[in-house]
């Protein structure tokens, strides 16, 4: 069953007097529970593709369906809610909120949802923190954490809302190989346990070991899709 369906998606950016064609007719069908890696050289359109799937950017043309919802006609608030309730984000530079501690960072999206009581929020956040094994750092601010710990917090924050999809833009790029491997294992474990769809961009060849599918992209086009398992 498709969770992400892209049809002839194009994205053009104006750059000075010229136009950059970041995506050129991308067709993509991603099933629920996949663990997909998008690979390609710098400037190939990986981040743009993730941004469009994550509804943080809008395609110039084409159709995008996320969890059976056509996002092209959604208002900004509807897109915001879609991101909040259905999509989790993990960034290359972790992008934690510096003024909040670990617990507060993880609680953050739950508070935005306005769906749970304070107690429920606290319980969910603590469970997720335990799940990513950073309980000892629960009261620390991001600046007091190592890169790996920060990324664990980012993963916890992305997963605490029980999203259908998690988008990770080069999640291991700022980590050493050992920590990177730990993070990927963690993501894989969550993927398998919770049936969450993971889509991540990477340059890291080790990542391929974890992925079901590898989508190769170049010059804004999907040039190959490799089934790994």
């Amino acid at each position, binding site marked *: 069953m498709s969770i992400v369906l892209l049809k002839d998606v194009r994205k053009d950016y104006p750059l000075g007097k010229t136009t950059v064609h970041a995506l050129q007719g991308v067709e993509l069908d991603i099933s629920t529970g996949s663990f997909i890696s998008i690979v390609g050289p710098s400037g190939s359109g990986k981040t743009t593709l993730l941004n469009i799937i*994550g509804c943080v*950017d809008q395609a110039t043309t084409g159709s995008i369906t996320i969890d059976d919802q056509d996002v092209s006609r959604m208002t*900004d608030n509807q897109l915001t*809610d879609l991101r909040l309730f259905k999509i989790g984000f993990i*960034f290359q530079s972790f*992008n934690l*909120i*510096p003024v909040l501690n670990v617990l507060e960072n993880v609680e953050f999206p739950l508070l*935005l949802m306005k769906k749970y009581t304070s107690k429920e929020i606290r319980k969910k956040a603590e469970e997720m923190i335990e799940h990513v094994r950073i309980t000892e750092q629960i009261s620390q601010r991001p600046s007091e954490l190592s890169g790996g710990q920060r990324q664990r917090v980012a993963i916890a924050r992305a997963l605490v809302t029980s999203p259908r999809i998690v988008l990770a833009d080069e999640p291991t790029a700022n980590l050493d190989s050992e920590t990177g491997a730990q993070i990927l294992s963690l993501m894989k474990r969550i993927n398998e346990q919770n049936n969450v769809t993971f889509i991540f961009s990477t340059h890291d060849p080790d990542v391929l070991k974890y992925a079901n599918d590898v989508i190769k992209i170049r010059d804004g086009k999907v040039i190959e899709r490799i089934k790994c398992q």
Partner: protein
Amino acid sequence: MKLIFLISFRNLIRQKRRNIQLGIAIAFGIVILTIANAFSKGITDNLLNRLIVFTSGHMKISMIESGRVMNPIIRDRAYVLKTIKSTVTGISNIEEDLGAFGRMIGNGKGDYVFLAGVKLNDEFKSYFRALEGSYENYDKGACNPVIISEQKAKYLNVKIGDQVRMRFDNVNGQKQTAIFTVKVIIKSQNIFMDYAVFTPFKNLKQLMGYKKFETAALKIILDDPRTAAEKADLLHKALEPDKACIWSKTDKYSNNLLLVPFIKGVSLNAAGSLIKMPADTEWDSDTKGAVISSVLADKLKLGVGDRIKFKYKQRYFSGLHHADVKISAIALFNKKISPDTVFVSNESFFRIYNYFLPEDKVRLEDYIQADHKDPVWDMIASEWHLLKRTRNTDDFAKKFKDLMRDKKYQPSMDIATMYETASEIIKMEYVFNLVTFLAASVIFFIIMIGVLNSLRMTVRERTREIGTVRSIGMRRSDVKKVFMMETFLLTVLSWLAGLIISLIVMKLLTLIHFSYDNPLNMLMVDRRLYFVPTLWSVFRNLIIVFAFSMATAFFPSSKAASLKPSEALRHTT
């Protein structure tokens, strides 16, 4: 909202140095604004609630006879007081205003002074501090004690126990010389008041020749001085006079006579067919005496040049008052006018009426049955001439100049407010308020430009964070709220700090004593700067600062909220 508050507050602490600097700037603005407001309010309080209260009151009712504007006299004090109390609300106090202007002679030196009648109270004692002598029993024993300022005592070369002489006009326009004993030497809180000399009210009233039921003028002190004009207008309506008349008896005649005054400068031609003079009678508006009907003349066997005698009950004296007036003309009255009506010239009538107010009032319509539109009614003078309300000092001065020239016996009543009697003081207060407000506004405008720039810088620095929170699922409106909340918190904290600092600064400034005399001393209290920080002005400042800062924060916050998440995430600082 809890989340927004938390993030805003933490962000505020996060950029400590910048926010402290900005906070200091806002607090500085608040200090300036609060001190300026408190000083301005102090000036207002000093001028409106002290200086004006002691000089003219917020409202003043006076009556003038024969153009003697320096010697006003309200003949029926009780009636005017009763009308004031039933008409005007929010009265703090009503005081009788009594004073005489004249030359005072001390020990080999003389000077012009304003001698004011005073009823001692705590307010007076605190405003005019006794330097020598004591207010305790000051009015006992000595004949005509006076309270005199330090400067005036020096000028007149007098000390406690010395005698001074003063010559002034009494209420009847006669020269009066009185001897006073210096009992208290004072220092006024206000240099402006140093030129007045005070004596007990009852002594001065007697010296000036006022009767018990009379007074010179009435000062009204209001709870809210700003309502003076509006209340004066109300009182002006309530003090609209009736037609004057004396309902009297005359010997050997069973009917009562009704004496009514002509207005000054009356023309009998205006009466048309109602009053017809015989062809050989000379009568014009300057003629004194009375015009009686030929019927009454026949009954009383009186002719032109005779005096018609009458008696009537008085309002404030027991027994009947006997008076007479010369008959200057005998006329044919139309049947609409009772033959028992006696028309008296303005001067002849009010010479009697003013001094011996009649008790009884009758319906004039019982004697004069002409339609109220008939010109005969316009020929009859009222109990007093109610002067038109004026709105400024120029009109007020012109009104009194005309009054001095007119010299009519019929009393003229004036209702004035501080806006006319003390307009220069009001103008000064207004100018001070305006200047302080403008100065504070300019400072604030500059500070707010700082807020604007700082916030723009903050938005720029936090663009990636904005991208992150927007990606995670924070709505645009919430992003805006975060920045607005940050500014709000900064403003409130700075306001609080500014308020505390300004209270301390004001306290310190009031400790400075300006010992030398200069005209600005009139804005001070006890030669010290005077601040009145009110709760309202403190919160008004908060509202002003809040409005300013929210307005300046609105645009950068809106810009932050409108950033596209993808672009914000790509942003590099």
